[in-house]
Each structure stands twice: as C-alpha cells, then as structure tokens.
C-alpha cells in the first residue's frame, strides 16, 4: 500500500513543481508558484517518510531542525547579497548529492548485484557533478562576497585549461573503470571524489568575479543534473523530474546572460574575462562635462519624458529608495518617468527589477530594453544611475571592443544624458565609455545614493508649493 501512496505523492509533487515554475510567467501568479513549490516539497518529504524501514527519526529531526536554523537566517540576506546566497545554496545542494551518492556506493558494496553498470555510472556522474558543484559554488560565493583570500581577478597560468579538462577526464576515466569493476576497484572512488572537489576549485580560479552570475546559473544546472543522477541511482522519478526542471532553468538563464553579454560559454568559462580591467581604467585623457545637482534638477524639471537607466552602481550604492523619491518628485510634476531595464544590468538577471520593486516602484514602469530603445530619440533626458557597459555605444560600432555586438540601451540617442557615477572608472567590462564624453552628456560625480539624494532635495526645495 505504502508504495502506491508514495508514488501518488510523488506524482502530485511533480505536477506541482511544474506548475510552480509555470506560474512564474507573470508577477500576478508568481506567489502562487511559490506556494505550489512549497506544497510539492512537503508532499515529497511526507511521501518519503512513508518508506518502510525509516527508523532514525532522531537523526532526521535533528538534521531538519539544523536546516531550519541555518536556512531561516540565510533568507534574510540583503538583496545585494542574493548572488552569494544562491551560490552557497548550490554548494549545499551539490554536497547533498555527492554525499548521498557516496553513501549509496558504499552501501551497495555488500550487495554488488545492485551495482548495475547503469547505476554505477549514475553514481559516478552524481558524485562528480555534486562535489564539483560544492567546491565550485563555494569559490564563486567567495569571489562575489569579495573574501580577502580569494583573488577577485581571474588567476591564470600556462596550460591551465588543458590541465583542468585533463583532471575532469581523469575523474571520468576512473568512473568508467568503476563501472566495470565496481567492487574490486572500489578504491578508485575516493580518488574520483578528490578530483571532483579539486576541479570545482580550479574551474573557478580563472574566472573573473563579475562573470560569477553566469557561472552560478551554470552551477545551478549542474546541481539539477546531480539531482537527476541521484534519481537514476535511487530509481526515483520525482528526483529526475525536479532535477531536470532545475537543470534546464539554470541552463536557460546562463544562455540569456551570455547572449545579453554577446559572449559564448567557452569565453565565459575559459576566457579569463576581465583581466584587462586595471589597464583600461588607467588610460584616461579626454575630459567629460560635469554638472551640479542644482543644474541637473533644473534640467529634469523642464523635461516632459525622463528615462532612468539603473545599473550595478545603483545596487552597490543601495540607492533604490532615493531613486523612488526622485520618481515621486518627477511624477508629481506630471513628468513621465520610465525605467529602462537591461537584461544584464547589475550582477544577476533581473537584478534591477528586484531592487526597484523593493523600492515600491510599480512594475509597469520597468520597461525592457527592446521596448524602450525605440522611444529614446523622443526622450528629453536620460538619467544613467551607476550603469556603464549596458549604455556603452561602442557595443554598436567598435568592432575592437570586447562588448561589441552586445545589445545596449541607447542612452546616447536621447536629447540629453545625465550620468551618475563616482569617477571615470570603467565598469565590469573594463572599457571606457564614449557616452560619457559625448557633448550631450553631463556627469554627476559621486556615490549614487548621495547624488540622487541631492537631486531629490533640490526638487523638493524647488517645489515647496506642493
């Protein structure tokens, strides 16, 4: 009987997981999606509890409690730390998969009949994926958190890629050997684990901190595939389904990011992107026009349509609240304010949307790049807040530029452009931005939060009447 109950629970859970992702297609139904996910996960867990032979309730209770103890605080992180948190979670996911695989392997040593070629292969895949996700994600989290002893910039050395790939191949070679001699060659297993752990670290070292978001989504899909492999090991369809959903989602997100950056996976993974950063930042000669908050405020007051282009800088400066106030001041004056959202503005997909949503800006004001660009020529003022690469016209014409071909928000087409940043330093791509030297652009130097704050003050002063 319990068999059928469990299968039924898993079946419903699978459907709910699918619906959960499906409902994310619209902010209106998104929270229902989360509910569906929670329900599915609960069903999956309760179903599993029905398994005959589950006895160590103490251990389970303890582990679950521990999970809550770590999990709840982990969900309080500030939004800017979301990428790190995600990375850490992937690490946990990978660890879990790896450990389960390891446990199964050693359990089945006593009943070799269970270790079919198919299963052994699955175990090997699960363990390699799991453990490389574990260390890889930890490294990624470290780089994003800018931990001291983890170098931000890509670290490269001769034959790096060759040796990394070699390592992975070696691990799989051992795996294949195990497939044929799962018992007599069991000593290979720890070696595989070690290789996977090492590969995870080495994979990340040559990748620049700013490429981490892409890497994280890739690790996301690895974590998913690890779950799939676990499903193959345990003959569990629910694991396969949820894992596959996860894997494809991670894959698609990273593809979206690569496209929006006009870069290939190989380039992200092995390109050691972002080494040049320092050099580029230095070579600086031409001068840009500056503007004072007073002047900028007046310009904004005179405009009838304003487009705000937020970028990573707004996230770093935590300026979203001030931006909201600015939005209110301008709309109060019947000025039409829209936000131009570049798919890879910030450091993770949809980064800007969450920040602005946090600041209570209605999401129908957040316009996607392709929809806003046609309006740019009719726009009076574009206000760039801590964005750089995503508004760099070089992407359109300068074949030499590393971001050539990356679709951008065409701030340069607007009648006038105000840009808030702390210096003339380049952004993530490490290249200078001619937009800031155009004679229609005025720079407002300073921390985004402070500058926007000044603008708001100016406007409030100006509109004492209201």
């Amino acid at each position, binding site marked *: 009987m319990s068999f059928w109950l469990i299968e039924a629970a898993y079946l419903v859970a699978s459907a709910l997981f699918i619906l959960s992702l499906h409902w994310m297609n619209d902010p209106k139904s998104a929270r229902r999606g989360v509910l569906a996910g929670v329900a599915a996960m609960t069903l999956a867990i309760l179903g599993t509890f029905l398994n005959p032979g589950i006895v160590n309730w103490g251990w389970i209770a303890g582990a679950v409690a521990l999970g809550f103890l770590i999990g709840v605080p982990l*969900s309080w992180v500030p939004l800017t730390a979301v990428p790190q948190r995600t990375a850490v979670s992937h690490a946990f996911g990978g660890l879990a998969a790896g*450990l389960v695989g390891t446990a199964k392997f050693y359990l089945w040593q006593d009943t070799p009949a269970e270790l079919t070629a198919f299963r052994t292969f699955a175990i090997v895949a699960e363990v390699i994926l799991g453990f490389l996700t574990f260390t890889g994600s930890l490294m990624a989290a470290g780089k994003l958190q800018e931990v001291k002893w983890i170098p931000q910039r890509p670290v490269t050395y001769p034959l790096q890629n060759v040796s990394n790939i070699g390592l992975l191949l070696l691990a799989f070679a051992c795996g294949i050997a195990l497939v044929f001699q799962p018992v007599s060659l069991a000593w290979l297993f720890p070696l595989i684990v070690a290789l996977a752990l090492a590969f995870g670290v080495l994979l990340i070292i040559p990748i620049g901190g700013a490429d981490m978001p892409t890497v994280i989504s890739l690790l996301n899909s690895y974590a998913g595939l690890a779950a799939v492999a676990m499903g193959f090991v345990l003959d569990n369809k*629910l694991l396969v389904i949820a894992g596959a959903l996860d894997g*494809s989602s991670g894959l698609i*997100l990273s593809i979206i990011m690569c496209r929006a950056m006009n870069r290939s996976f190989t380039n992200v993974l092995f390109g050691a992107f972002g080494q040049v950063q320092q050099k580029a930042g230095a070579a600086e000669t031409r001068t840009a026009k500056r503007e004072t908050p007073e002047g900028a405020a007046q310009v904004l007051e005179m405009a009838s349509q304003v487009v705000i282009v937020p970028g990573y800088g707004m996230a770093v400066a935590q300026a979203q609240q001030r931006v909201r106030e600015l939005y209110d001041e301008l709309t109060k004056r019947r000025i039409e304010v829209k936000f131009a959202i570049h798919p890879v503005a910030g450091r993770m997909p949809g980064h800007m949307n969450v920040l602005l949503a946090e600041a209570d800006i209605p999401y129908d004001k957040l316009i996607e790049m392709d929809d806003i660009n046609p309006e740019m020529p009719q726009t009076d003022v574009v206000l760039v807040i801590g964005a750089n690469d995503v508004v760099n016209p070089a992407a359109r014409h300068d074949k030499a530029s590393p971001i050539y071909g990356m679709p951008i928000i065409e701030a340069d087409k607007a009648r006038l452009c105000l840009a808030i940043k702390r210096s003339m330093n380049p952004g993530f791509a490490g290249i200078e931005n001619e937009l800031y030297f155009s004679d229609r652009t005025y720079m407002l130097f300073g921390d985004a939060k402070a500058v926007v704050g000044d603008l708001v003050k100016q406007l409030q002063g100006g509109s004492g009447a209201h």
Partner: protein
Amino acid sequence: MSAASLLAAAPAEAAAHGAGPAESTSLLFVFLLATFIGLGVVTRVSRLLHTPLMSLTNAISAIAVVGSIVIAGQDHPPLITFLGAVALAASMTNIVSGFLITDRMLRMFRRPGEEKRR
C-alpha cells in the same frame, strides 16, 4: 564505447534486483520529457522575475532531500547515517531559505496602484 558496454551490461543484471532495465529506460524517458517541460516553462518566465526564479529553482533542486532522508533514516552503519544526516541538513537549508527568500522578493513586486503585499 562506454555507453554501448553499459547497455550491454545492464540487462544481465536485470534479473538480479527489483528495477529491471525497463525501469531504468523509463527514467530516461522521464528525464527527456521533464527537460522539454523545463525548457518550455522557463523560457516563458517573466524577465521581471529572473532573480526570484533563480532562488525558486534553487529551492526545487533541494529535492535531493528525498534521497537524503532515505539514507539518513534507514538502519545503516553510523557513518552512512551521518553522511545522510549532513545531506539532509544541507537540503533542508536550501528548501527553507530558497522558498523564504523567493517569497520575500515576490512580495516586493507591486502592481500599479496596488498596495505592497505583506
């Protein structure tokens, strides 16, 4: 080459234990279909919600909890049980934090006019 030999090997084993080859191929079919669904569904997720999506799938991938419970819960040598328990704790962490933070983010998205959701 490895794949082929894999295939050759399995049916022999089939008799030996519960899950026959038919079962393992079912899993392949399930994998294929689920991947199609995943690709179809995720490509239609609103761009607005890509960050919450990341944390949601993150929570979903914690489905490894199912395997962890089996390992940790059944009567095995203490070391195995311990591994299982660690895996279980790790998965639970992802489930809890993943869903909580996703919902926290989604609560922020406010329809024009509508009051912020609590």
